[in-house]
């Protein structure tokens, strides 16, 4: 604590002095405030700012651990240029986009259903809560492994079930389209419970009297859902969408555990390609450039959502 204070002390007073109206007590308060904030700032700097800066710097370097003799010279935008003409990068981006397009709405729809279910006045609440929390609490790789086993060709639950009802077994994990579908199912299962938790919290803030008023006004259950639940839930849905979209852009663990990107590269995501580039091929420079590109896409999408939410409230009249 004392070291932080001594490093910060010279910084704070000039700022305080710049405001002539500040009393000595206010100045002390201010100094204490900075001192108390310092640990948080240092931590934030250490775990967020520094790695990002380092990542960006590395993305402008030739930095390949497989070729240590080359050193780490700056190569400008070369890594980015390489990405633009790298088919595997575009394919991975395309796959990632598909995952986003399918699993984000998928998780929100399923999550909404789960939230509505959990919001019912059950007499015994714990099975519902457990059912909601379990997929969320499960590590991603576990979920991937479980579903890999579900969709396994000879022993898997899914094929066994298909055979039992007289349908042919499917090559779930070795056919590109089926593998994509299987992975999407696993992702939706895994992520919809988080969405459900967010939406459940939102549902519980809707006053019951609104439904009673609507009931008296003549709205049936379906009309109540469209006219009250959905619009009132909009802010929560946007939050869920933001979180889900960001994690969907970073999709890694589940396809990694289920197919490792296969067959071929047909289910490989951007995050998996970055992982392969840096960990398997040891090409830190190129991997960093890819990571920066992924970060930019996330940032743009998030900004878009935020704009959408900020634009809202009084804009829509009747």
């Amino acid at each position: 604590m004392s070291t932080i204070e001594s490093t910060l002390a010279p910084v704070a007073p000039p700022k305080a002095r710049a405001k002539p109206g500040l009393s000595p007590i206010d100045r002390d308060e201010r100094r204490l405030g900075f001192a108390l904030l310092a640990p948080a700032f240092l931590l934030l700097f250490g775990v967020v700012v520094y790695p990002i800066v380092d990542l960006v710097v590395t993305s402008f370097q030739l930095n390949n651990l497989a070729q240590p003799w080359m050193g780490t010279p700056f190569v400008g935008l070369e890594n980015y240029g390489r990405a633009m003409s790298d088919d595997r990068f575009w394919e991975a981006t395309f796959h990632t986009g598909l995952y986003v397009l399918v699993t984000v709405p998928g998780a929100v729809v399923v999550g909404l259903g789960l939230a509505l279910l959990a919001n019912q006045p059950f007499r015994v609440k714990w099975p519902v809560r457990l059912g909601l929390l379990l997929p969320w609490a499960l590590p991603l790789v576990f979920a991937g492994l479980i579903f890999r086993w579900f969709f396994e060709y000879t022993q898997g639950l899914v094929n066994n079930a298909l055979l039992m009802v007289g349908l042919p077994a499917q090559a779930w994990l070795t056919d590109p389209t089926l593998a994509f579908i299987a992975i999407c199912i696993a992702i939706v299962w895994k992520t919809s419970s988080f969405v459900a938790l967010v939406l459940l919290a939102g549902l519980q803030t809707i006053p019951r009297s609104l439904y009673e008023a609507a009931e008296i006004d003549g709205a049936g259950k379906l009309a109540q859902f469209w006219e009250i639940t959905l619009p009132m839930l909009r802010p929560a849905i946007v939050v869920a969408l933001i979180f889900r979209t960001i994690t969907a852009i970073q999709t890694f663990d589940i396809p990694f555990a289920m197919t490792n990107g296969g067959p071929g590269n047909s289910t490989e995501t951007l995050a998996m390609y970055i992982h392969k580039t840096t960990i398997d091929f040891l090409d830190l420079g190129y991997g960093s450039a890819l990571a920066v590109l992924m970060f930019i896409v996330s940032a743009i999408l998030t900004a878009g959502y935020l704009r959408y939410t900020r634009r809202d409230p009084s804009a829509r009249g009747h």
Partner: protein
Amino acid sequence: MAGIAIRHVEKSFGRAQVIHGIDLEVRDGELVVLVGPSGCGKSTLLRMIAGLEGVTGGEIAIGDTVVNDLPPRARDIAMVFQDYALYPHKSVYDNMAFGLRMRGSPKAEIDTRVNEAAEILQIGHLLDRRPGQLSGGQRQRVAMGRAIVRRPKVFLFDEPLSNLDAQLRGEVRVEIKKLHQRFGTTIVYVTHDQVEAMTLADRIAVLRGGRLEQFATPYDIYNRPASRFVASFMGSPPMTVVPAAISADGHHIALQDGTSLPIPEARRPTVQAASGRPVALGLRPEHVRPGEARDAGDVAVDARVEVIEPLGSETLTWLTIGGRSMTGRFPPEQAVQPGQTVRVTLAMSRMHLFDGETGAAIAA
């Protein structure tokens, strides 16, 4: 338009019974106010009329239809909630139009009716706003507007004014009365504000612990309370009620410290039956006046002034009479001081007598 018949209605939540068989007949076009202390079941009864709660026993009819098994939307009622329950994401216009829209009214008719209601309530300039952009009083008006556009058979109000400040409450109260006179619709109105009850009601139903204590006109509730509970619940400050005993011949009533007060001739026959039993003597503050006895039946006693509350138009005076605390309404020019002993007249002809055990009024 329709009256409401409540026939021996009961309600239990789980094992807890909160309404114990209430019978109440609301006439067509009547404004009935339900009053009672917190938790006595006013809201529950109102919500059963609305259909938001089922009935456990008995029967509710609106007009000629028994509505026990009808959902709220089929009962042709409108309700104004305590928290207004306006749809926050809809404009004032859409809030008011919602009920008509749900019932499939044509757009042009909705428009006419909403604008008409908005004009009556003077909220025409607010139609484009959201509820969040309105003051409490404006929200209240929108809630009423939403109820009146539908022109239902019955209006139900659950403490609609309790979130307004005193002045606004007075204004809106008058407004509600005007609306009732204008539309003549049957209204059931819940409040625990006795001024609201007295000023609005055609008849008041006083509830206590899920039972109907008395159902009568405001005049009768005030002047002929059926029980000690009603007597001390209605009136501000409340009626003073003290334990007492009636002499064997029915000519005197004795307070606990032995002070004996003569009973006016006219009241003697009815009270004699209660002689020898513990009773409670009730006197409204306006029947405890300063000065010597003037009218027949008046009794002058000495009283000690404990606390005074000057209200401008009158001074509420807390007195000790016969070892018991009583409240009097004194004219403001009557300067009394705490600690003083003053001469006070009790208008015994206006006294109320209640059974000491059951609290039931002993017929006047």
